[in-house]
C-alpha cells in the first residue's frame, strides 16, 4: 500500500509544456510514474516525452482516464488550474507553485471541501510513494521504500530528514509535502486517517512549523484516533517574528496557539515523540521501530 499515489495513479501534468513542467514530467516518467496526459491551453495535440497534451483537463480525462493531477503552472494561474481539475472530477490535485495569493487559496479551499476533493499544496514538493510513483519535484533518489509515513510543511526539512532516514536504512511508505502556505489544501489532520489506515505505514512523522493551529489540531486527532507511533518536529522556535497581525492576531491567538511551545505541549500530551532537530527525528525512529 501507501497513501494518495501509487503504481495505479494515472497522472495529468497541468502546465506540461512549461520549463518546470517538462523537466519534471521526464523525471516522473523515469521514476515509473504513469503520467498519462498533459494540459496546456492552446497546445492540445502536441506530445511531451510521448505524453499527449490536451487543451483542457476534461478532455485529458476523457481520453486517458486520468485520476490525479499535478499543477506546474505559475502562482497566479494556480487557483484557476485547481478549479479546472476539481470541476473535471479529479479528487486528488497537487499544487507546486509558491507565492499563490492567499485569497485565491481561500476560495479553492472551501470549494474543494464542498466537492470532496483532496488538494495538496500549494508551495508543496508533491507526494512520493517510494518505489511506486512520485508526483512533484522532489529529488527522488534520496527516498527509499519502507514503513514510515511523512507529512511536512517544509520541503527542505523533509528532504533532510528523509535523506538521513534512508542512510540509516529507514524507508518511507509515502511522503507528503503539505506546503508551507497559510491556507494549505490539506492539513495534517486531513491525512492522518490515511496513514493510520495504511497497513504499510508503521510510524508517522510530522514536520511542522510555528504559526497556525495545524499541529494542535493534529495532536487532538492523534490523542483520539491514532494508535501508530508519531514523531514530530516543530521548526521555528528562534525564527524572526513574522508579519504583525495587529491586535486582531493577539485576540485570536490569546491562548498561545501557534507558538512552538503550544504545539509541542499539545503533541506531547497526545503521546507524540518530540524531536528537536531533523537528525533527532531519525534517532527517535531508530529507537521506536
Amino acid at each position, binding site marked *: 500500500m501507501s497513501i494518495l499515489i501509487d503504481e495505479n495513479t494515472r497522472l495529468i501534468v497541468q502546465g506540461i509544456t512549461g520549463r*518546470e513542467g517538462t523537466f519534471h514530467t521526464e523525471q516522473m516518467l523515469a521514476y515509473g510514474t504513469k503520467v498519462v496526459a498533459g494540459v496546456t491551453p492552446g497546445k492540445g495535440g502536441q506530445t511531451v516525452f510521448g505524453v499527449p497534451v490536451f487543451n483542457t483537463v476534461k478532455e485529458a480525462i476523457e481520453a486517458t482516464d486520468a485520476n490525479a493531477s499535478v499543477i506546474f503552472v505559475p*502562482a*497566479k494561474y494556480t487557483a484557476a488550474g485547481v478549479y479546472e481539475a476539481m470541476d473535471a472530477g479529479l479528487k486528488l490535485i497537487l499544487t507546486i507553485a*509558491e*507565492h499563490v*495569493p*492567499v*485569497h485565491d487559496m*481561500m*476560495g479553492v*479551499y*472551501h470549494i474543494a471541501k*464542498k466537492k470532496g476533493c483532496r488538494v495538496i499544496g500549494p508551495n508543496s*514538493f508533491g507526494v512520493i510513494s517510494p518505489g511506486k510513483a512520485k508526483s512533484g*519535484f*522532489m*529529488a527522488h*533518489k*534520496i527516498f527509499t521504500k519502507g514503513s514510515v509515513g511523512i507529512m511536512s*510543511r*517544509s*520541503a*527542505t*526539512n*523533509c*528532504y*533532510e530528514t528523509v*535523506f*538521513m532516514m534512508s542512510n540509516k536504512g529507514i524507508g518511507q511508505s509515502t511522503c507528503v509535502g503539505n506546503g*508551507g502556505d*497559510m*491556507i494549505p489544501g490539506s492539513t495534517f489532520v486531513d491525512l492522518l486517517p490515511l496513514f493510520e489506515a495504511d497497513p504499510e505505514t508503521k510510524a508517522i512523522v510530522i*514536520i511542522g*512549523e*510555528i504559526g*497556525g*493551529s495545524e499541529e494542535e489540531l493534529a495532536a487532538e486527532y492523534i490523542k483520539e484516533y491514532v494508535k501508530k507511533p508519531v514523531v514530530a*518536529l516543530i*521548526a*521555528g*522556535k*528562534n*525564527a*524572526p517574528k513574522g*508579519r*504583525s*497581525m*495587529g*491586535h*486582531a*492576531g*493577539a*485576540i*485570536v491567538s*490569546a491562548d498561545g*496557539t*501557534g507558538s512552538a511551545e503550544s504545539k509541542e505541549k499539545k503533541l506531547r500530551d497526545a503521546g507524540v515523540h518530540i524531536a528537536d*532537530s*531533523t*537528525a533527532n527525528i531519525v534517532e527517535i525512529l531508530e529507537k521506536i521501530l
Partner: protein
Amino acid sequence: MDLMEYKAKELFDKYEIPTQKGIVIEDVSDLASKALNLTFPLVAKAQVQIGGRGKAGGIKFASNTDELLEVSKSILGMDIKGHIVKKLLIVEKAEVSKELYLSIMLDRLSKKPMIIFSSEGGVDIEEVARLTPEKVMKVSIDPLIGIKDYIIRYLISKSGLNNSLYEQMFDIVKKLYTLFCEYDCMLTEINPLVITAENKILALDGKVSIDDNALSRQPDILEFRDSLTEDELVLEARKFNFLYIPCEVDGNIAVMSNGSGMIMSCIDLISKQGMKVGVGFDLGGGATAERIAEAVRIVLSNKNIKALFITIFGGITRCDEVATGIKMAMEKHEEDKLLVVRVEGTNKEKGLEIINSIKGQIISVDNIREGVSVLAARRELK
C-alpha cells in the same frame, strides 16, 4: 506588507471610510502650503513601520502654528527603534466620546475572513478581550457567500451600540470588508474607531496588512512598497526575487537555503549553541548559478556578517548550479569570510567537485549538525 497609517488611511479614503482631515509632510517646509486648510488643535504622528511610536514620542499635539512647526521639527528625522521618521501625518484632533474596535483578519483556523468588533476599543483592547471576552465579537464570513447585511446587523445589534449610529457603523463595516477583499488583505484594523462629540464615527488610526504574494495584482501597493526606505540589502535581494530576512540586530551569522523550513531549522540549531543569526536568506526554488552568485554577493556585503552557512537540498535547485554560483561570487569577493557549505541532492558529486576548487575559507560539510559544529568551534562567532 504592512502599510503605514497614512497609506492605510488613503485606502480608507478611497473606500469612503471616514477619517479625520489631514496631510502628510516629509519636510517642515511643506507645512506652510499644506496645513492651510486644517483647523487647530492638530495631532502630528510619526509614520514608521513599527509599533510603539506613541511611547517613543512619535505622537504630539499642536494648538497653533508655532507649536505645529516645533513638534514637526522634533518628530521628523526622529529614530524610533531604528526606524528614521521620514513622513509625518498631521490630522485635526477629534473630540472623542467613545472608542470602538473593528478589524477584519484572515483567520487561519477557519480559513475565512473574520470580523472582530467591540464597543470597547482603544489601546486596551487585548485586555478587554482577555477579561471580558463577551465584549469582543468575532464572526467568520463564508467566502463563497460573502458578507451579508445580517452579519453586520448582528454585530451592531449585539454590541449594544446606540441605534442612532447604526447606519454609519453598517456602512463602515461593509466598506472595510470590500477593501479587505479587493486589496488582498491579511488584516485591516481600525483601533480606535471613535464616536466623536458630534456623534460621527471616525477611523482614528488604521492598520492594513497585504498579502505579499498578491502584490503583482495590487500595483499601487507595490509602488508604495518600493518607495519605502528599507534595508538596502532587502531591496537588493528583492530585485532577484530572493527573500532577505533581517534577524537579530547583533547576529553575525547568515543562513542561506532554498526554503524557509530549512532556514528555521538552522536558526533553531545555531541559537541552541549560543550563537546569533543576523540574516536568513531564502533562495526560493529553481535558482541558477548566476542567481546564487548574486545571493552570496548580497549577503556577504553585510559588514556584520562574519560567517555564511549555505545549506541546499536540491529538488528544483540543482547542486552543481549552486556550487558554480558560489564559486563565481567568491572569485569576485575580496574579504575573507567563513563559508560553510552543505549541498545534497541532484548532481551532488559535480557540486562538491566545484566547491573543492574554490579558494578561501570554505568548508564543505555533510549535514546540518556538522555545519553547526563547525560554526560553534569558531570563538569569534559566539
